[in-house]
């Protein structure tokens, strides 16, 4: 899939440098998508990749307008764009579901970070805040304001829903890592060798996913 995109984009878009080829961006987005789909918690956003890919798509669509109706290339390009768009949408949908599911937890974690380190894009953050505010409004209107005075609070601490970081994930190792300790098991350390695949608790490898040392599959 990435090969043909690289091909397509190559003759549609002439800017071609090593680090940022369309093929590489697409590969990175697919990796981000799989990581996000399988990680129980929300991962740092990848908006540069998403923005870059969407820009590529609009370039491709512009260029396709130049092709005649019925040109076989038209159908191939369109198919390719549809597939890329699906990956991006599925990726963003998964993030949105986590944001809705763990709103209070994600927002409070995010408040501890500087804007540059934030896991959420400004758009996602705005959405999360509105989502929470809407729930609070509904709770207040229907129930809380009718409860006895000392029970009217929207108790943020109690209402927080957290992801289960002890759940298990499948991963493939990109870079070797030594001495992983899985809590609750025997004290044996686990070494990850490059290319290996394994089933493991998410918690001890969470940071490796974020660094890119392992890929969730």
């Amino acid at each position: 899939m990435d090969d043909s995109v690289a091909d397509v984009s190559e003759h549609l878009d002439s800017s071609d440098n090593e680090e940022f080829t369309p093929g590489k961006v697409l590969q990175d987005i697919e990796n981000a998508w799989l990581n996000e789909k399988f990680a129980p918690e929300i991962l740092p956003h990848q908006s540069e990749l998403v923005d870059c890919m969407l820009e590529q798509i609009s370039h491709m669509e512009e260029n396709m307008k130049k092709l005649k109706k019925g040109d076989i290339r038209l159908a191939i390009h369109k198919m390719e764009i549809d597939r890329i768009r699906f990956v991006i949408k599925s990726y963003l949908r998964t993030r949105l579901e986590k944001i809705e599911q763990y709103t209070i937890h994600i927002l409070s974690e995010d408040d501890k970070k500087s804007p540059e380190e934030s896991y959420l894009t400004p758009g996602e953050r705005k959405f999360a805040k509105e989502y929470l505010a809407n729930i609070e409004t509904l709770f207040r209107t229907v129930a809380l304001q009718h409860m006895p005075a000392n029970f009217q609070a929207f108790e943020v601490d109690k209402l927080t829903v957290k992801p289960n970081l002890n759940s298990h994930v499948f991963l493939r190792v990109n870079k070797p890592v030594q001495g992983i300790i899985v809590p609750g098991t025997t004290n044996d350390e686990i070494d990850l060798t490059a290319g290996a695949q394994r089933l493991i608790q998410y918690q001890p490898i969470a940071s490796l996913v974020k660094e890119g040392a392992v890929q969730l599959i």
Partner: protein
Amino acid sequence: MSLCHSYMPNYFSIDDILSSQERVSCKIEVKLPGLGYLDVSSESPDLQSGTKLDLPHWLAYPMNSRTHPFVSIEVPKIYKEAYREILTADACAVALNKWSCYFYEFGIHLAQYEHSDCNLIQDLLLQAFKSRFRLVMDWAHNTGTDPTVGLQLPILERKLFLTGRKSRCLLISWLKEGGGSIETSEMVANHKKRKRAELEDENT
């Protein structure tokens, strides 16, 4: 929702609310004035110390876990010696949902009490689950299985069974057709089904 969740009870969890409704036998240790109505068999306005009654876990637990507990508790029989032996003998032969639909969840709740019988519960749950898991997985993966067997399982296993069945069906349809077929949304489909049923009701 497409997100996959492993069991993680929270404030809003329906399963957690229902499982904390399971009852624990309690003996009142401190007189509770004005609460006599909780014991239907007595006419006293107060709940006298020494009274025995069943309380839901959500109430029994905070009443029990204090420096001076309001109640002392007794571990439900399904987690005690006699039943533990039945499970150890052959966990797969037991209709666990008849013991309690929330056998695992309630067990986890009970393990928090400070009571000598409670220390063994965690192990009991783990062992029971381990020995029964293969059976549940087998049922889920065998297409010949009667889909209603899930109803014979306690909630935790039932959900696992249904998830297993669903993914088995998805795999088969993917192998056959390569997937990619667009389906009517689940809620829309249910809504239409209901509407059709209503129409049929009106016609008869």
